[in-house]
């Protein structure tokens, strides 16, 4: 477990004038399932390619177990990559694909055979050794790619959107499989994806990236429940971002004003008068009968009800014009809501998170959103 420690120090990559990676510092511990998450163009893939050695960093260091390998060519780095396109060798059989890299590790023929067999068993493809990659399905091909990398027993495995080309059902199966393999082998996984579900379900820690920087890096639960910025809140899961004005804090939380309504947040990192948005997850918003009074209650009107199977999303237009999404479970206990129904929206103080407003992240749409005729 001592192997597979990756440390990025001030890593910068520029392509001409374009900055792809803008000074990243990161420490991935041995055996960790670490995910880099972000929209396309945020620098996550470039960072991975820098670690793999396909790109040369403009500045900074890449340390594997304490040794700087930023000037080591890819074929001498003890990290292996699984590509989104699988990148299998079409002219070689599955067996030869998996055995490809063993040629560069001093191992006997018998050892090659044993290790290839083990790797194929690990990804449950024992039967397919003599097939050509093109005779396998997409999911099977990606498992071959995985076996081909893992057979070399790298301390760190890099995965570049490995499930990106697969359909949704298969993706979920392979997520479970990847996690199982990672836990079984105790290999450090550095996983790049733009899919938040993948990031949340598999990772020990997630770094949310934006424009070449790490926006926030923490465990999935922390990222989801206490996002540090509006960008993270918006990117990870559904969220309501309501523009508010921050009042003077007192012992019992911070007063916020949403238009003419007063709210209270238990925790507020921002000072009085700052531009802010209050973030609340749709599943934490409560719908109460019209006329209910109390703290953090705002009247509104149901604008749209979207049926989503196990729950429904109710979009409520608050009295000040802000649109709030509410997740309501379909469990027979909730009264049927219809478009135009007046309701009272409860935004519990302990679930309200006050974040700095971010011009690039759209907050809850105001009244100009097309309103369906009542």
């Amino acid at each position, binding site marked *: 477990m001592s192997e597979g420690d990756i440390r990025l120090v001030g890593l910068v990559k520029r392509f001409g004038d374009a900055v792809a990676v803008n000074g990243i510092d990161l420490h991935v511990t041995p055996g960790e399932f670490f995910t880099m998450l972000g929209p396309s163009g945020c620098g996550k893939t470039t960072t991975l390619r820098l670690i*793999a050695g396909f790109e040369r960093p403009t500045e900074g260091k890449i340390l594997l177990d304490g040794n700087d390998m930023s000037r080591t060519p890819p074929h001498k780095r003890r990290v292996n990559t699984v590509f989104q396109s699988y990148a299998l060798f079409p002219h070689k059989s599955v067996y030869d694909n998996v055995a490809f890299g063993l040629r560069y*590790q001093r191992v006997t023929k018998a050892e090659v055979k044993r290790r290839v067999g083990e790797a194929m068993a690990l990804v449950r493809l024992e039967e397919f050794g003599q097939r050509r990659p093109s005779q396998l399905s997409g999911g099977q091909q990606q498992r071959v790619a995985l076996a081909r990398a893992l057979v070399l027993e790298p301390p760190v495995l890099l995965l570049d959107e490995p499930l990106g080309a697969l359909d949704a059902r298969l993706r979920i199966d392979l997520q479970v499989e990847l996690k199982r393999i990672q836990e079984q082998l105790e290999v450090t996984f550095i996983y790049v994806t733009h899919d938040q579900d993948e990031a949340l379900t598999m990772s020990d820690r997630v770094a949310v990236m934006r424009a070449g920087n790490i926006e926030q890096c923490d465990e999935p639960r922390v990222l989801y429940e206490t996002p540090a910025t509006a960008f993270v809140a918006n990117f990870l899961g559904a969220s309501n971002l309501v523009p508010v004005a921050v009042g003077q804090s007192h012992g019992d939380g911070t007063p916020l004003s949403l238009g003419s309504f007063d709210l209270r947040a238990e925790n507020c990192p921002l000072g009085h008068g700052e531009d802010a948005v209050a973030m609340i997850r749709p599943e934490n918003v409560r719908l109460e009968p019209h006329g209910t009074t109390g703290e953090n209650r705002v009247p509104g009107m149901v604008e749209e009800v979207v049926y989503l199977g196990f729950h429904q999303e109710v979009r409520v237009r608050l009295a000040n014009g802000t649109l709030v999404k509410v997740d309501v479970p379909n469990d027979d206990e909730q009264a049927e809501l219809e478009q135009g129904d007046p309701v009272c929206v409860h935004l519990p103080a302990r679930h309200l998170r006050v974040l700095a407003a971010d011009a690039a992240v759209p907050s809850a749409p105001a009244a100009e959103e097309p309103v369906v005729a009542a």
Partner: protein
Amino acid sequence: MSATSVETAATKERVSLRDRLANPWGRPRFLAIVTWVYIIWSLVPVLLAIRFAFNSGRSRTSLQGWSLRWFWQDPTLSVFHDPTLQSALTHSLELALIVMAIATPLGTALALGMRRWIGPGSGIANIVLLLPLVTPELVFAVGMFLLFTTAFGFIGLGTTAQAIGQVTFTLSWVVLIVRGRLATIGRDVEEAAADLGAPPLHVVGRVLLPLLVPAMAASLLVSFALSIDDFVVSQYLASGADTTTVPMRIYSQARGGPTPALNALATIMLGFTLFALALAYFVYQMMTRGETKESAVKTLAMEMG
């Protein structure tokens, strides 16, 4: 062919003329007719030339029965017995083999190099490399002639000059073909190979070259066809009777007493070309077995044309 069966079925239902001519759901008959007319039009001269190669008389315009006289039966005038025709044939084949053997590996290496070379000058080099494809061959040949009679006088005219000349313009085609294939292979497999520990030479040897075999087969075929077909460059850089190629011989004999032996000679060349084409197709099929039919056909089409 299959259009007739549709027609017989259709007449039973008394389809109006208008429907038959312009039925948007029917077969595109008009297009089929145009295509077949073109195919027949382009094949007729070739078939005629082949037909006269088997003429038993001396005429190249009137049919006089069938024979193999002009291939080898005639003791003095057949391709097999006429030393000038024989030497033209061997020289053409010899030249084609030399050109194939040099242009294909050199062009492959160039294409691989161009792929790696990203930076100032690479864009211009890319264009210059493909320039011979559009340069008028006559201009190119005259330039080559000047070169081999002055600056490269030590080489002089002859087989070497002809080979160099043909390699020079064939190279562009090879680069074009190999580059097309490289584009479909993609960079991922190269990176994957390096990632798995293969040093740069092994990436080329174990991954790229095997994947390039189909493109190289196509290149061999194209250089063979270009070389055998070449007239202008061979003519300008020839040094005498022993460097006369088949096209040169056919051209010069066309004026003074042509016999069907010329047709026989051309037929033999056509036979070689068809054989090469079949061989290249076979190799391509073998080597791209692992890939989907569709993509293989697509790349072959791209590489051939």
